[in-house]
């Protein structure tokens, strides 16, 4: 039951994010290159989240556990890597912007970089560790 609730909540969150992006794209008019890169990363995150939800639903349908000790350990590890990425991404982002663009990032840009980079690191490490085994 707990697993099913988790899947339903995950699905709802994914649908809400997709709707938000759809509304944003429809009202944005022309989308700049930096925005399209951000959108691409968000779409990758949505696809990865959908895959994780589908994988769990598939296991429940087969009568197997959706989440076991290996996946819980993987979650912790990926969360740790995501946390480290969240700590360093503002610093690295600001540094790169300073060198390439020659300007400082605004607060909202730094927040966006932190959220997107840590999310991406979490998802990539989760999928990698899930394939590797540990």
């Amino acid at each position: 039951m707990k697993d099913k609730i988790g899947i339903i909540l995950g699905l709802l969150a994914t649908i809400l994010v997709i709707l938000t992006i759809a509304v944003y794209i429809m009202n944005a008019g022309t989308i700049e290159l930096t925005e399209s890169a951000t959108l691409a990363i968000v779409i990758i995150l949505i696809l990865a989240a959908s895959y994780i939800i589908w994988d769990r639903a598939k296991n429940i349908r087969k009568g197997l556990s959706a989440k076991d000790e290996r996946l819980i350990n993987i979650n912790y590890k990926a969360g740790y890597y995501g946390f480290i990425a969240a700590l360093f991404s503002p610093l690295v982002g600001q540094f790169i912007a300073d060198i390439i663009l020659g300007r400082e990032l605004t607060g909202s840009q730094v927040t966006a970089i932190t959220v997107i980079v840590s999310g991406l690191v979490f998802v990539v490490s989760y999928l990698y560790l899930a394939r590797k085994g540990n």
Partner: protein
Amino acid sequence: MKTRMKELRARYNFTQEDLAKKIGVRRETILFIEKGAYNPSIKLAHDIAKALQTTIDELFIFED
């Protein structure tokens, strides 16, 4: 760490999925334990040994 899980599983005609259902884990977890890619916790090792009617000592071969 090596394991005799595959051999013991075959003895009882269990597929990876059967064993996974029996002990409440995902099939991939059984696969990774058999391949030696994942070291299970003592509780999971105990559950697997119980399901295969053996002991942890017989199931897992610890190497120095």
